[in-house]
């Protein structure tokens, strides 16, 4: 693109190493200067005296777990704190003291001087407006550009973010685009006026690994080309390890450590930073187990979905979501299933659980079909349980934990009652590291990680032969994720558990499975022992997945690695 070839401000250009650029942190006039910023919402402190700077052309990553205050820092910077917030300290961007500006002044700044990209591209765009309207709007509200000119510039910006006009005309609506493409539109809106500061709040968390890599590349390229400062919020250290100039680690509304990326990774001072780092690369201790007889057999399974008619009375089309898939899981095996969204993972899962019929092929558990006579085969169904991704949405908030985790009992012909039932509840809760007394509490009393433990207890309580983990740790913070993975390894040892672990996160699959299957466009294109598939992938697609997956630099942290008891 040549449209924006003249730099608006003297930012730094490509070819400079992060260590050079990080000198910018000492620049006397950084682009964004946050000093001693505190924010309280309805009197409750959320940010406690944080100080950080971002220079022009500099990428600063803010990382930490949920509730650490990283998103609040971003919202404070763009002046969009929730109602009832009270901010104090100094927050200046390009010489403007943002905390003293009036709302109309802030409106002039947002989208013009400071752009922002959000986490969830699927919902970040207005569904009833075309992408051209939405990108042009940024230009129209801040400048006196005529409409036609604004749309021409919107087209240029969209091309610049990788949505060329011949394939993605301005008249497209968000629902016609994939998640990655929508995120590009959001980025186009944010950079249309070439802001000095770009804030990206978990911009790739909801995306597949390959799309994530593309979006990260795009952000990096735009920042380098325009000399923007980039505040990148992420919970995943690996995502920013080869991109950020500096890293800021936050916890409970405070900055615990910050510094140039390489130096920070080389010498982590704070135990919390080390804990985060360790948890990100955590390997659960899986014991080798001899594979038993075949438990789950999937034979040439095909699953078709009907697509809408092309013409009013035309024939209905069909889409093959699962295409001739065959595999076997033996008793005691721990198998991973990886692939990008839309590859058919979830469809295959539903078929395995007997929730949907197959068009051809068969799925057998212990030699019996999971789906018979148009219904789930309950004899088989009670031997399988599932743990879902969202620990917040998968529980009825009006039931107590006891009722929640005993729900699978209705699958049994003679469910335990009285003392036996209470014993079963206590045992399941103890097995997942909770206390038997927790049975009397409601779900809102538990954190995300505890809820996922309860979900596992619910799956365990009827002693299933197979547990399906469907993205079961994807929504968790890294340290909680590490604990849940350890729990799975323990349960696998103690209960001889067989599980199918479905995930888009390759590093997690590697740490928790013996065998892995790679799925693409409804087919299993590669399967084998986890270590050999990851180390020597034979398919191009597997290689591209592995290359796109962000990795952490090797551990070189300073200090001792003893766990901090206060964490």
């Amino acid at each position, binding site marked *: 693109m040549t449209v924006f070839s003249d730099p608006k401000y003297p930012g730094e250009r490509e070819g400079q190493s992060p260590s050079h650029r990080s000198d910018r942190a000492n620049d006397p006039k950084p682009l964004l200067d946050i000093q001693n910023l505190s924010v309280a919402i309805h009197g409750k402190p959320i940010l406690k005296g944080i100080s950080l700077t971002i220079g022009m052309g500099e990428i600063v990553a803010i990382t930490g777990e949920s509730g650490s205050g990283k998103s609040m820092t971003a919202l404070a910077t763009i002046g969009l704190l929730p109602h009832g917030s009270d901010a104090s300290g100094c927050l200046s961007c390009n010489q403007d003291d943002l905390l003293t500006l009036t709302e109309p002044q802030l409106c002039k700044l*947002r989208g013009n001087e400071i752009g922002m990209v959000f986490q969830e591209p699927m919902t970040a765009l207005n569904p*009833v407006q075309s992408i051209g309207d939405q990108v042009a709007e940024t230009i129209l509200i801040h400048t006196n550009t005529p409409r036609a000119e604004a749309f021409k510039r919107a087209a240029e910006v969209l091309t610049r973010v990788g949505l060329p006009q011949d394939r993605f005309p301005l008249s497209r609506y968000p629902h016609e685009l994939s998640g990655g493409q929508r995120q590009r539109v959001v980025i186009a809106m944010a950079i249309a006026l070439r802001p000095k500061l770009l804030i990206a709040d978990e911009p790739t968390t909801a995306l597949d690994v390959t799309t994530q890599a593309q979006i990260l590349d795009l952000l990096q390229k735009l920042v380098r080309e325009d000399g923007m400062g980039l505040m990148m919020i992420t919970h995943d250290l690996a995502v920013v390890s080869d991109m950020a100039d500096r890293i800021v680690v936050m916890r409970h509304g405070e900055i615990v450590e910050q510094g140039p990326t390489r130096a920070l990774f080389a010498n982590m001072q704070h135990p919390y930073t080390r804990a985060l780092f360790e948890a990100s690369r955590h390997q659960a201790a899986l014991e080798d187990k001899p594979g038993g007889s075949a438990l789950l057999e999937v034979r040439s399974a095909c699953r078709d979905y009907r697509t809408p008619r092309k013409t009013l009375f035309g024939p209905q089309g069909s889409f093959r979501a699962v295409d001739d898939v065959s595999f076997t899981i033996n008793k005691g095996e721990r198998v991973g299933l990886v692939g990008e969204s839309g590859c058919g993972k979830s469809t295959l899962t539903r078929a395995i659980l007997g929730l949907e019929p197959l068009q051809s092929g068969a799925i057998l558990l212990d030699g019996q079909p999971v789906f018979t006579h148009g219904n789930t085969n309950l004899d088989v169904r009670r031997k399988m349980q599932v743990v879902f991704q969202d620990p917040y949405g998968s529980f009825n908030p009006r039931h107590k934990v006891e009722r929640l985790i005993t729900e699978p009992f209705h699958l049994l012909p003679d469910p335990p009652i009285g003392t036996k039932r209470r014993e079963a509840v206590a045992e399941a809760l103890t097995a997942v590291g909770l206390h038997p007394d927790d049975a009397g509490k409601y779900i809102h009393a538990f954190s995300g990680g505890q809820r996922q433990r309860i979900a596992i207890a619910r799956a365990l309580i009827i002693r299933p032969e197979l547990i399906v983990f469907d993205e079961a740790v994807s929504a968790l913070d890294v340290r909680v994720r590490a604990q849940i993975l350890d729990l799975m390894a323990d349960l696998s040892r103690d209960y001889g558990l067989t599980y199918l672990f479905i995930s888009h996160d390759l590093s997690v699959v590697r740490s928790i499975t013996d065998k892995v299957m790679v799925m693409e466009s409804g087919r299993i294109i590669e399967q084998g022992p986890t270590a050999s598939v990851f180390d020597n992938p034979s398919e191009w697609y597997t290689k591209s997945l592995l290359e796109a997956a962000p990795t952490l630099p090797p551990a070189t942290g300073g200090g001792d690695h003893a766990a901090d008891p206060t964490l």
Partner: protein
Amino acid sequence: MLRYFFKRLTSLIVSLAIASLVIFLVVEVAPGDPASYMLGINAQPDTVAALRAELGLDVPKWQRFLAWAGGMVTGDFGTSYTYRTSVSQMVADRLWVSLPLALYALTLSTLIAFPAGIYAAARRGKAGDLAVMGATQLGVAIPNFWFAMMLVLVFAINLRWFNAGGFPGWEGGLLPGLKALTLPAIALALPQAAILARVMRSSLLDILGEDFMRTARAKGLSYRQALWKHGVRNALIPVLTIIGLQFSFLLAGAIIIEQVFYLPGLGRLIFQSIGQRDLIVVESVVMLLVFAVIVVNFLVDLAYAIVDPRLRARA
């Protein structure tokens, strides 16, 4: 879009066919003889037989259905037993009152409800919101016939701005007709506006919590701009549904208001016909109302597609 249109149109035709069959079955095939029902329990057998012949009840049912449905399509609704005039003419006369009245009331209700709902949503929890919500509570709670009588007392009897009732017809021009319909339209519109304003407010509040509203703010739109440019259109779907329901209700449900203002509308016609056991009129008017409801739903469906591009794509 064209496919969506035809799909909706097909569904409209099928609904009409099913509705006509159901109405026919309920009125004509239900236990009891329509002729003896219409004449009452003291009727002479020969009178009943004569009416049966006149109504065509002596031919097979499927022939009667075809004749009735065919007549509906061609605009021949039969002859009223009580009034001895063409039902089509009677209905057409009444429709000239009821249809403008319903449209008038609906326009008023929308004009009141949209600003009120948007205003309340924009000031959620503040005094303005509380005032609007309080007013809508009252609007829903006040019986509209009482409100109609208050309107008559104030504007017709005290201020003498309007007539207390009656309808001069459209022959005298548009204005006198509209003037006669103004008080009834206000009386009808008030509760509808109150409901619609509440729906608009809650729908808009849902939208205000959406991620794309935050995106709009991050672009530099003020709260109010974001509300108007991105919020209102997204909030319209539930509002359109309610508008469709309200129109159907206003067309036939204005019986009480028509009584209060002595308006010769459809509601009064159906009320009188039921009292006089004139099944032919009842059947025709009910079919006409069903037709109106289905057509309004069709129009609402089209409006959805205009508002929301995703619906166009999904068809």
